[in-house]
C-alpha cells in the first residue's frame, strides 16, 4: 500500500498552481462511482480527464442521499444497484490512478460510510487509492475534528463548503487537513435546484475571498456554458454536476448503448463548457 509522503505536494494545490501560471480557471465535474457500472464509471473518469476536466469529484454511493435532488439521488440508486459503495469507490480511484497521476480526485458524499469504516482506516485507504480531498455533504467542520486529524495525517484535505449565510467560523477555518479550495454554494436548497444570478454568485465569491485565502470554486446550480463562463470570471473554478449528469443521460438514451460514440459525445459536451470557461481568460 502506498504510504503518504508528506513532502509530496497535494494534487489540488498543484493544479491551482499550474492553472494560475496558465491564467486559466478550473473546470470540475461530479460523477457517482459505479453509475452505471464500475467499468463505465472508469471509462467516464478517463474521458473527463481527456476532455479538459481539471478536477473530478467522485461520489461514493449512499442509500440516503438526503441533501441531493432527484438527478443525483437516482445516480446513487443506480450505483448501489451495480454494487457500488465506499470500498468499491476507492478501488475505482486506484484503477484510475494507474493511468492518471495528475488529475485531482475528490471524494464526495455522506458521512455514514466514513464513520462505519472508521476515520483513520478511511483516510489511510483513501490516500492509498490516490484521493486528494473529501467533501462531506453532511459533515460540517464543527463536527469534523477527528476526521480532519486523520485526513491531515495522510495528506488529504477536507474541502470546506461555504454558503453566503454561513458564518466565517463554519468555513474559514485554518487547520492542517482543511484546504484545497472553498466550495462556494451561492444558492440554498438541495442539489439540482435553480441557478443563482451572476451578481449573487460574484457576491458570494467575494465574501469567500474576504474570509479565506483558499482558491474559490462555485457549484450548485451551474447549468449552462454561459453561466459557467460568468462564474469563471469571478471564481477560481466552476463545478457542474446535475446539468452534466442529466445531459449524459439524454445522450445515453439517444444512442441506446453505443458506448464508443457515447464517450465521444460526452467529450463534445465537456468541450463546450471548457471553451466557454477558457474564453474568459482570453477576454
Amino acid at each position, binding site marked *: 500500500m502506498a504510504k503518504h509522503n508528506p513532502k509530496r505536494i497535494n494534487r489540488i494545490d498543484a493544479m491551482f498552481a499550474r492553472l494560475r501560471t496558465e491564467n486559466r480557471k478550473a473546470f470540475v465535474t461530479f460523477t457517482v462511482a459505479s453509475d452505471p457500472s464500475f467499468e463505465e464509471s472508469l471509462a467516464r473518469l478517463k474521458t473527463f480527464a481527456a476532455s479538459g476536466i481539471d478536477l473530478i469529484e467522485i461520489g461514493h454511493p449512499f442509500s440516503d442521499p438526503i*441533501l441531493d435532488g432527484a438527478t443525483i439521488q437516482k445516480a446513487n440508486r443506480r450505483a448501489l444497484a451495480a454494487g457500488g459503495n465506499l470500498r468499491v469507490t476507492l478501488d475505482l480511484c486506484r484503477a484510475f490512478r494507474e493511468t492518471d497521476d495528475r488529475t485531482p480526485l475528490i471524494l464526495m458524499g455522506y458521512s*455514514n460510510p466514513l464513520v462505519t469504516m472508521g476515520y483513520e482506516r478511511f483516510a489511510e485507504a483513501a490516500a492509498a487509492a490516490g484521493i486528494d480531498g473529501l467533501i462531506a455533504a453532511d459533515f460540517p467542520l464543527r463536527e469534523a475534528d477527528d476526521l480532519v486529524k486523520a485526513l491531515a495525517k495522510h495528506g488529504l484535505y477536507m474541502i470546506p463548503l461555504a454558503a453566503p449565510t454561513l458564518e466565517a467560523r463554519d468555513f474559514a477555518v485554518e487547520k492542517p487537513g482543511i484546504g484545497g479550495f472553498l466550495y462556494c454554494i451561492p444558492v*440554498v436548497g438541495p442539489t439540482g435546484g435553480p441557478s443563482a444570478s451572476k451578481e449573487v454568485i460574484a457576491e458570494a465569491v467575494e465574501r469567500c475571498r474576504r474570509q479565506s485565502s483558499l482558491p474559490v470554486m462555485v457549484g450548485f446550480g451551474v447549468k449552462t456554458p454561459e453561466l459557467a463562463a460568468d462564474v469563471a470570471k469571478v471564481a477560481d473554478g466552476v463545478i457542474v454536476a446535475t446539468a452534466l449528469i442529466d445531459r449524459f443521460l439524454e445522450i445515453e438514451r439517444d444512442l441506446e448503448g453505443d458506448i464508443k460514440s457515447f464517450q465521444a459525445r460526452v467529450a463534445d459536451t465537456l468541450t463546450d463548457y471548457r471553451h466557454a470557461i477558457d474564453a474568459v481568460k482570453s477576454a
Partner: protein
Amino acid sequence: MARALKVESRPGRYGSFGGQFVAPVLLPVLDRLEAGFHSAWGDPAFHAELTHLLNRFVGRPTPLFDIPAFPSRPGGARIVLKRDDLTFNGGNYANSAVGQCLLARRMGLSAVVTDTGSGQNGIATAAVAARFGMRCTIYMGARDAAAQPQAVKKMRLFGAKLEIVEDADRALSSATSAAIRHWMGHSDTDAYVAGAPIGPHPYPEMVAAFQQVIGKETRLQLVEGGVLPSAVLSAVGGGSSTVGLFSSFVSDPSIRLIAVEAAGSGESGAPNSARLSQGRRGIFHGAETLVLADAEGQILAANSIAPGLAYPGSAPQLADLVSRGRVETMTATDAEAQRAVRRLAETEGVLICLEAGHALAAAEHVARTMEPHEAVVVMTPSSGDKDIDILWQDA
C-alpha cells in the same frame, strides 16, 4: 430542559451521540433555532401559552389507566397505561407539534414542514398549523400513505399540502429526507417540525423538552395514587414518547426503564426495527446515533407492523442511555403486538395503537416476574383507530 436525560460532553451531545451532521447551509438555521428555543424556553409567557394550548387544544393532562382484566394469567405486577392516545389529534406528537409551531410563530416564520410515518405527527402538525393559520407541508412515504388513507385525508382536511414520496423505501425515512430537502430550500419561511427527538441539535433537546410533559404528568399521577413503578416501558419509534416518559424517572435508579423495539416477523434475518439493541453506531439524519446499517454503512430499511416503529435511526439520548446501561431493551414481534392490542380491546374496551401493543406485550412478560404490589407503566402514544384495518382483516 431535559437535564436529567443528558450527560453532555459538549452542546448537542449525549455522551458521544448527537451533534449536527447537516449540510453546512443549515448551520445558521440550526443556530437561530437553538437561540430561539432557548429564549422561548426561558420566557414565562411562552410557557403560559404552551400550557394553555396543551390543556385546551391538545387535551392534557392525559389519564393513567388501570387494566386489571388484561393479563392472561393471574398474579404479577399491575399494569398501568399512560393514555396519550386521548389527546385530541395525533397522540403524543401533538405535544411537540404545538411547541414547535408556537416557537416558529415566535421566530417570525409563516409555514411549517414535516414528515410523517404513521400519520400521527402529520395530523398533529396539520391541526396545529390550521389553528395558527400557518401554511403546512407534509411529506409521507407512498407506502405509508397507502396504508393510512384516513390519515392522508385528515391532514388534507386540516388544509395541509401532502407530498407523497415515491423514493427509496417509500416510508418514513424517505419522507424525512424529502422534508429536510424542502426545508433546505425554504428555511427563511418554513420551520421544520421534528416528530421525534432525532436529527441535528437542537432538535433532540427541543423535542425532548416539549415531550417532558408526559413524564411529569405520569410521575405526579403516580405519586397522587401512592405508587412508584418498578418499571416503565415504551415502544421506540423516533423516541418522542419514550424520551418524554423516561425523562421523569431516569434519575431514579430503582425504576427499570425499558425501551421496546419492533422485532418485525421475529424470523432471524428478516428485517426488523431493533437498532438500539442490534444497530451500529452511525450518522443518520443529522446526528451520530445507533442506526440499522450494513457493514458498508448503507442504511437498511426498517420493518414493523407498526408504521411508527419502522425507522432505522434512533434518538441520540436513547442511544446514550442504552450504551450506558441505564435503559434496557426488549423486543416484541408483530404477532405479539397484535395479540396484546386485541386482548386489551376485548377485555378493557380500550383500543391502543400497534406501537403501544409492542410495549404492552413486553410489559406482560415483565409484570409476571414481579409481585402484585408492584406496578408497571406502559406508554400509549396514540389510539388504535389508525390500525383497525391491520387488526381486523376479515370484514
